[in-house]
């Protein structure tokens, strides 16, 4: 069957566009890159639109089985209900990041854009690869552009940040590489005399592994993912990298790259090693809780606001992790939804932080004050982003957090309570952030005043708003109707091994009519005028 290779086009379009940008005249580079990034968004939307939510198998599968027969490796990509949103997120955030680069990056633009597009391609590949070899290739492909982007266009400590980033993540990934190969080899051995070495995800999932094997493999994958997702105590690279990278790159790192790790946990750790996952759930949940609380407490005391957001990211990704390892429908669906939300929200926050840094040249909260007076529009979008981040009900993060934490709570009350605790410090540090910048008395001297004198500290302009706008829209849309996302994931999540299917609560066990499938959203404005059934003892 030959069909249009939509997934490959989505992956490789940025790659090709990035290569071509190098040979374009300098003036064309930015519009070119943005154009293709947007085309990729459009393709992702087409993909989403033609995705069949009622199928639990991989869709749009493309496969070239004989890529490297010597390694037992083929090229194969596919998408399911979990990765589809992450693909959409990636294309969107990449387009936003490239859009944000339009005015913030002015040196060596072509190289910069080529690397950004390469990074996008790498991330997309990670989400879509269904072969571990291919996955690993894309996984590492992400690393290089990120290294260059941080190191070349970053802030004063960019070199340290870049090298730290690479060494941390590379150490983790190489352990994962050992894990990947070992998994393939085990598949071969457990397959009996006719076992073949394969890294195809579908086949690997059927490998019978002993619990010990699973645990070691899990830990090998864990090394790569935990570093990249920034689980405490392996997060040390993260604040440095986020702080030093130029804003669009920070967006790519925080918005999409960390998701690859969370996705990896879900797809590989949970998907391939259900036994180990079951055994190691306490470890994962404790690390997640520690990340949540530790990140939150550290975010509280930062004065550099990019660093503050970085720690908030550690904290919020802890929630995602917590949800994934709740191993039930709500936890995982919420976790994935929360990945999308976190990508959107952190992007908005970093964009705004970038706007502020670009205007004033400083990132210290103390240098600001009362800026809402001069930057009303910026203050509003900032507030929306901050509220989204702190999980204000009605906005996107709340939806994700709620579903996630509900799942966690069902799995384990203690982790649920500790995870839910995130909302308190989150409100605290984000409002401290907002207050420090936008409220209080205006500073009397310092970089902000200097920038104002120079006339560069203007309010948000339309270009900047245009870049933010899709994010703001999504913040509200997902906040109001997250169900579209979770229900599309349902099939894929239930296809994961070891995930607890939701059961009716005990009190209702005898009511067979409470079947999920029966519950359909009521048509708009349907009047439910049923007689109220409460009976009171007053009349009795």
């Amino acid at each position, binding site marked *: 069957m030959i069909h249009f290779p939509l997934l490959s086009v989505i992956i490789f379009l940025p790659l090709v566009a990035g290569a071509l940008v190098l040979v374009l005249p300098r003036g064309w580079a930015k519009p070119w890159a943005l154009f293709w990034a947007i085309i990729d968004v459009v393709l992702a939307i087409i993909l989403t639109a033609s995705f069949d939510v009622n199928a639990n198998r991989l869709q749009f599968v493309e496969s070239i089985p004989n890529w490297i027969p010597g390694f037992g490796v083929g090229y194969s990509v596919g998408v399911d209900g979990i990765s589809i949103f992450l693909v959409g997120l990636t294309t969107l955030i990449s387009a936003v990041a490239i859009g944000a680069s339009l005015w913030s990056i002015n040196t060596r633009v072509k190289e910069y854009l080529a690397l950004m597009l390469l990074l996008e391609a790498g991330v997309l590949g990670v989400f879509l690869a269904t072969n571990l070899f291919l996955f690993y290739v894309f996984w590492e492909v992400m690393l290089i552009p990120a290294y260059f982007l941080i190191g070349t266009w970053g802030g004063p400590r960019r070199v340290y940040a870049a090298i730290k980033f690479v060494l*941390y993540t590379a150490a983790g990934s190489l352990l994962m590489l050992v894990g990947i190969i070992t998994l393939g080899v085990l598949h071969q051995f457990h397959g009996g005399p006719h076992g073949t070495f394969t890294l195809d995800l579908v086949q690997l999932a059927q490998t019978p592994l002993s619990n010990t094997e699973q645990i070691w493999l899990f830990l090998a994958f864990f090394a790569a993912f935990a570093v990249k997702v920034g689980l405490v105590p392996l*997060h*040390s690279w993260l604040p440095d990298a986020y702080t030093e990278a130029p804003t669009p790159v920070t967006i790519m790192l925080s918005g999409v790259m960390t998701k690859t790790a969370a996705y990896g946990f879900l797809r590989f750790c949970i998907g391939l090693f259900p036994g180990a996952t079951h055994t190691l759930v306490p470890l994962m949940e404790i690390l997640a809780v520690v990340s949540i609380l530790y990140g939150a*407490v*550290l975010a*509280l*005391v930062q004065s550099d606001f990019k660093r503050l957001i970085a720690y908030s990211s550690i904290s919020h990704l802890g929630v995602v992790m917590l949800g994934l390892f709740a191993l*039930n*429908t*709500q936890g995982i669906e919420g976790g994935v939804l929360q990945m999308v939300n976190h990508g959107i929200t952190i992007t908005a926050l970093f964009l705004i932080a970038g706007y502020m840094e670009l205007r004033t040249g400083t990132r210290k909260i103390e240098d600001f004050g009362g800026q809402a*007076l001069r930057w*009303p529009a910026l203050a509003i979008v900032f507030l929306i982003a901050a509220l989204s981040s702190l999980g204000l*009900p*009605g906005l996107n993060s*709340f*939806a994700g957090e*709620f*579903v996630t934490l*509900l*799942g966690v*709570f*069902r799995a384990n009350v203690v982790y649920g309570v500790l995870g*839910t605790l995130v*909302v*308190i410090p989150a*409100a*605290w540090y984000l*409002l*401290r952030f907002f*207050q420090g910048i*936008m*409220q*209080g008395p*205006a500073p009397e001297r310092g970089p902000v005043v200097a920038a104002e004198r120079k006339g560069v500290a203007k309010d948000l302009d339309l270009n900047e708003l245009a870049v933010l706008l899709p994010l703001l829209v999504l913040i509200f849309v997902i906040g*109001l109707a997250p*169900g579209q996302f*979770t*229900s599309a994931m349902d099939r894929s999540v239930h296809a994961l091994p070891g995930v607890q299917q*939701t059961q*009716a*609560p005990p*009190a209702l066990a005898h009511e067979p009519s409470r079947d999920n499938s029966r519950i359909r*959203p*009521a048509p*708009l*404005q*349907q*009047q*439910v*005028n*049923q*007689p*109220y*059934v*409460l*009976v*009171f*003892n*007053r009349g*009795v």
Partner: protein
Amino acid sequence: MQVFDLTWLVLLLPLLGFLIVGSLRLSGWYTNNEMITWIGCGAIALAFIFALISYLTLVNSATQASDSVFWRWVQSGSLHITFGLRLDALSGVMLLVVTGVGLLIHIYSAGYMHDDPGYWRYYSFLNFFIFAMVLLVSADNFLFLLVGWALVGLASYLLIGFWYQRPSAANAAKKAFVVNVIGDFGLMLAIFLLFIKFGTLAYGGSSGVSGILFTDAGGTAAAPAAFALNDPMIIAITLLIFVGCVAKSAQLPLHVWLPDAMEGPTPVSALIHAATMVTAGVYLVARTSNLFNQAPASLWVVAGIGGATALFAATIGLVQNDIKRILAYSTISQLGYMFLAEGVGNYAAGIFHLTTHAYFKALLFMCAGAVIHALGGEQDIRKMGGLRQKLPWTYWLFLVGGLAIAGIVPLSGFWSKDGILSTLLALGIAPGGNLWYLVLYGVGLLTALLTGFYIFRLIFVVFHGAYRGGEPVPQPEGQVDTRARQRRRGDPLARVHEAPWIMLVPMLILAFLSVVGGAYGTPWADVLGQFLAPVLGSSFSLEQFIPQGGWLWVSFGVGVAAGLLGILGAWWMYVRRVPSLKPMKNPLYQLFLHKYWVDELYDWVLVKPIVGTGRLANRVVEGSLLDGGGRGLAWLVGKTSVGFRAVQSGYVRNYALIFLVGAVLILLYYIARP
């Protein structure tokens, strides 16, 4: 008669108002305040009308509830949440209070905030608040209750921090939000537990929480089959719900944000921090009364906290000097009353007091606002005095409000407060009654006495005696600049005058309500209680809340006497004698003045340790341990590298030696190998 459910319009109009006002300014063609006033007030006025229509049709209908489902919010496994609005007796009453009082305060604000540069912002926020509050009271499930619950918190945050350039306002706003988030946290946990226990988050309907509680196995309210009394799960749920209520309604120990919230504009204090938002907790307990009834232990907690808060806040209110803070502590105290009522099972009395309190406390705040407005932003009662002549309308209105809150017959406050006190008495003296009811009754009485005292201390100090302040410089409340105020010879109050009509009219309406608002809740004609009864389950019947025989009159008498005694005491201290407003050395006074040092306690027990931990971790864990560890590892590798490189000495024979070492090692390996 069919219910004409317009709740969605009630919800939508303030939202539209918010959006239109906000976008008017942002899109740049905002011109004048008048348009904003019309849009802002108009939206609320329409909402009030629609709420009234809905309410009236509900009252006259056989249907007890109308539930409109709009869209599926989320579906994830068995989790299935829709967005829907519910109109029943409870939400109907709340809608009326919210939109009604809200409307009055919108109108009042047109005068009060007239000169503020953030006028547009103010109205959009205020409209947003009404939207959020409507969502809170009309949501048909716990999730959207939580949404509204948090959104009112946001509105409160925005309005407390309205004058955001004042650090105190910004801090107060943040504090309010964070404390409220603690409540949200509790509520969220409660919702999780609810879902686990019931598998649904809807209130009503056969599949809702209440439905499950009462229809299970054909059970009746008296004997719901599946749930035993004091089921630990239910206790946990109710206590967690109550955590949310405690935070939102500023009960002990999370009351600390409300006094600080007085940094916001006074109409905001009137609307949000007196009449509506802070009563959301009371509403929620009433809304979940069926759950609470299943958990009497939780109810005792509610009653205990309510009683303690009532007394506690009243004592603080005795000695405060900021006109708004006195009212704030009074609010906390009155909210304590409401919880006291709900804690003993008389939810209707709680709601009743909620409504009357909305009238008179809003009135009091508006009056205080008028005073502050007249004095150019002054809030310290020690710098007031003798304003009776200059602000006669305000004075009389304030007096009405004061009498109402003091529970002087026959004002509304008397009926509602006495409803609570008599409930306690009735339950205490009933056969087999619990002694704790009487203890709580005593607390209530004492609080009533203190209430009379502090409110009349306020009235006497502000309106009686001689003026003690300087000449007020007319300026908006937000931009108080005490330095600009200078003393002049002659009458400092020459330029002070009464509030404009646009402020007085709402005050008059509220005063009217404060006087007659108790009429629908008298023990003989408890219209409200009857109306709410289908929603508010209780383990007692309404009759049981009324002391039998002469005890009702005893209760009336004692209650009024307590109020009068308080007023008398205030009169004796501040009118009869020369009012002494100097701080006293009396330890009790100091305790009250410093609000029991609760703020300081939080600072020492929570804020400082957490921030300190963060700083320490930032320095030690992030800096030395992790970053330093990484650097240390790099250093180690570097040192090893340099050390090994020293072996690479550049001498040929040395190289040969290294070579030979390797060869000999291999040889030894073969010799030693077994």
